[in-house]
């Protein structure tokens, strides 16, 4: 058996184990960082096949189809085009005058951990970030998520079908993220997207250094240079761990390295199995982090916030790193001073993968409008962005950040039927998400909204329900 073949089998077995929800003991075939101790139990909502007709379709990958049709069967997109044949007996949704896009994907939320109303317990000890160390790579944010956060249902009503919940940026190694569908459930596993690559959050710049400077009992870095040294030290330990694992996997060592939840997570980053979402604002911070990643041979999947990404498009393009940015946030802290609204459009024009993110449950209800703001600012400096291009910033590019670009974010045969029927051009503030479909199932229907708020928190309180 050649080594190439062996590796192929390892990859296959690992993929199966991820899908099955994973075993908790590593074997020679499954390195510890690929174990998912909190497997998904998500099942699609009840669904029926349908043919959507007469819509202005933006496929999420750059194509616009006027008077377009879309065929959905068994939760997947089967066909997309004009004047598709109507299979006998199939339900037809007439979208005359309306627009259809892939479901919106938000790659940066704190839903379920930044839960409003915030109370004394949040001030005392918030679940957004674990603060016992600058390195909390052993934490999984899904173990903290309060699924009754009204942010989930508000996002769904805004057309969001998939979102990544990230830990906060106070620690440098902030922990594992989770990718979920914003459907009503009693636990996060039932919302968790099965088979999604694992995501990880890192942070650079002001937040981690000020956190450690403030804390009396933590001796973490208090400067940017300290953060970089800390990161390199940690990845050197992770290299040793990964090498020890490889020796074991090749049969060169009798026993696997002892499990270490922090080090093995970083080894998974080095192995390319865990996607890095890195919080940075300044261009010099991002350039430094790209150098660190190059030194250790991994790719930073995406910079988040990336207020100055527009200053380094060639660097980002060369590294294959995406930027997740805001439509108009800027200025509230020193590293955000140079944020500009045209950031996304400038990056897109330069061939950088760019995505709008929210970081806020208010903004997260309208990522399509965040894209419209960026495009509007770009128009003022002579860059025209048509809707079919703009939609990529909240669909296919976002899917790429999650490593799900072959499953969601595009309306094409074989893709998950996650889509939104909008009452109008989705980049208009007047557009409403009329129908939100996840895996072929209606998750929200504006024409027959739930009688009561989907969140238990809002249930049974005095006054009219939230509209």
């Amino acid at each position: 058996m050649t080594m190439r073949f062996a590796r192929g089998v390892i990859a296959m077995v690992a993929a199966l184990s991820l899908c099955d929800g994973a075993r908790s003991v590593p074997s020679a075939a499954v390195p510890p960082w690929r174990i998912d101790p909190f497997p998904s139990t998500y099942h699609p909502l009840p669904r029926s096949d349908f043919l959507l007709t007469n819509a202005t379709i933006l496929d999420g990958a750059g194509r616009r189809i006027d008077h377009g049709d879309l065929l959905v069967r068994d939760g997947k997109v089967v066909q997309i085009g004009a004047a598709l044949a109507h299979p006998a007996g199939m339900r037809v949704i007439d979208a005359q005058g309306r627009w259809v896009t892939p479901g919106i994907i938000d790659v940066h939320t704190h839903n379920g951990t930044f839960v409003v109303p915030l109370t004394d317990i949040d001030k005392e000890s918030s679940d957004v970030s674990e603060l016992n160390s600058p390195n909390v790579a052993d934490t999984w944010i899904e173990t903290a998520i309060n699924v009754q956060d009204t942010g989930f249902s508000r996002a769904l009503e805004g057309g969001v079908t998939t979102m990544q919940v990230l830990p906060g940026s106070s620690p440098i190694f902030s922990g594992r993220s989770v990718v979920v569908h914003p459907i009503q459930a009693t636990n996060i596993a039932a919302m968790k997207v099965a088979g999604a690559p694992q995501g990880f959050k890192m942070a650079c710049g002001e937040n981690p250094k000020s956190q450690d400077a403030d804390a009396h009992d933590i001796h973490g870095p208090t400067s940017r240079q300290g953060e970089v040294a800390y990161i390199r030290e940690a990845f050197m330990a992770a290299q040793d761990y990964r090498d020890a694992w490889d020796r074991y996997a090749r049969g060169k060592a009798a026993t696997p390295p002892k499990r270490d939840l922090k080090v093995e997570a970083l080894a998974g980053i080095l192995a390319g199995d865990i996607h890095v979402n890195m919080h940075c604002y300044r261009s010099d911070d991002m350039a430094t982090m790209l150098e660190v990643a190059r030194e250790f041979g991994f790719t930073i999947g995406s910079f988040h916030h990336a207020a100055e990404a527009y200053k380094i498009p060639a660097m980002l393009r060369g590294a294959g790193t995406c930027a997740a940015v805001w439509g108009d946030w800027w200025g509230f802290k020193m590293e955000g001073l140079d944020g500009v609204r045209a950031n996304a459009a400038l990056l897109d024009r330069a061939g950088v993968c760019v995505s709008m993110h929210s970081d806020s449950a208010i903004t997260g209800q309208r990522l399509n409008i965040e894209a419209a703001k960026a495009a509007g600012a770009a128009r003022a400096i002579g860059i025209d962005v048509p809707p079919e291009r703009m939609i990529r910033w909240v669909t296919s590019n976002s899917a790429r950040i999650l490593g799900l670009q072959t499953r969601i974010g595009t309306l094409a045969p074989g893709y998950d039927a996650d889509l939104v029927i909008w009452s109008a051009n989705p980049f208009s503030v007047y557009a409403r998400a009329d129908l939100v479909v996840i895996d072929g199932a209606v998750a929200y229907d504006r024409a027959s909204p739930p009688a009561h708020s989907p969140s238990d928190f809002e249930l049974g309180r005095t006054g009219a329900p939230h509209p």
Partner: protein
Amino acid sequence: MKTVLLGSAAIAMLAISSASSEPIAITHAKAWTMTASDPVPDATILIDDGRIVSVTTNGAVPSDARVIDAKGQPVTPGILNSATQLGLIEVSSAAGTRDQSSEAHGIGPGFDVSMGLNPNSALVALARADGVTGALSYPSKSDEAPFAGQAAFLKLRTEGGILDHAGAAVVALIGGNKWPKDAGSRAAQWQMLRRAFGKASDGHHDAGRDKGGPHGHGDAASGPPPGSDDAVLGAVLEGRVPLALFVDRESDVREAIRFAHDFSVHIVIMGGGEAWRAADALAAARIPVVLDPQANMPTSFDELGNRLDAAAILYRAGVVVAFGMAGGAIEESYNAGLDLREGAGLAVANGMPYVEALKAVTTNGHRLWGGGSGTLAAGETADIVLWDGDPLEPSTNAGTVLIDGRPVSTDNRQRALEQRYLPLATPQ
């Protein structure tokens, strides 16, 4: 090349400055005068000596007028944001740039933010470029609960400062999260408010009696010194200045109505997340509301009722609604124009008539704070914005912005950065 461009821009500005007295004709405008429910189509807007002369369909253009072609796009009065901290906060995380709050002992309702305004703020320039010509800039907490201090009304002029008038409102905050340590129960906050006004009222009447009548104005000899807490509250008691009350919970909104009745003062509900639950009572008491039109999350226990159609409900009940604070703390000052317009658009998407949402970002705020009428009526100050599309669409940009009848610079840091780095964005 860059130098040449900057040079020509500077020359253009000089030309504008030196031609301040020339009449201006804005042609082919879809003119929202705010004095009618529909826009004037293909309008010619004539401006002379800083004031609007006329708005007429296909109106004649005087031969000496400088012509600005609106190309069929909307033209509106300048946007007014009724709740900002423009000019008071530059970088939230840089203490030396924050002037919104009095922490000085003994400075309470008299705290006057107008002395701390920064006309060169990058936030002001961006707001102006977004079509904002007027703004209420309000103080945060003072040293004396439940007061914040005196708000200033800004006009975002490029020369001569941004203060239009100081003391545009006396601001107080009452509720669950607003005074976490100092003031305890909201019931105590109401009592403190009543006590302060009761005391000022006694002093006011005493001063009045000295001058021979209950409504006489205090003077330096017999009344409270100008700018003192009692003088500031006295101006509210005389009905010259509104009391802007940041309250959200329905119980506090109703308590505010009772307070306004008992003390016969003009109040404005600020925030008012649950004001819609008291819409009829507010309408009956003629109390206006300044809303955050983007608020639809239960941000605090006082705001469980936050909803996107709050503006529509209040309007239908007959309450005067103005918008401010759009998008919460990050946006209210950093995107005082763009996010306010987005919020007004959302209000329309949730049932508010279009022209009423426009009023909520133009005329209605002027009814509360003064500083003109916010209309394009003949004789009004010509604060005007030309748009490249629907002003309530966040993708729309302001083009020419006129303040006092003159086009002003819309240069700002963001645009300068975008221009500087645009050459790096080479199409791939």
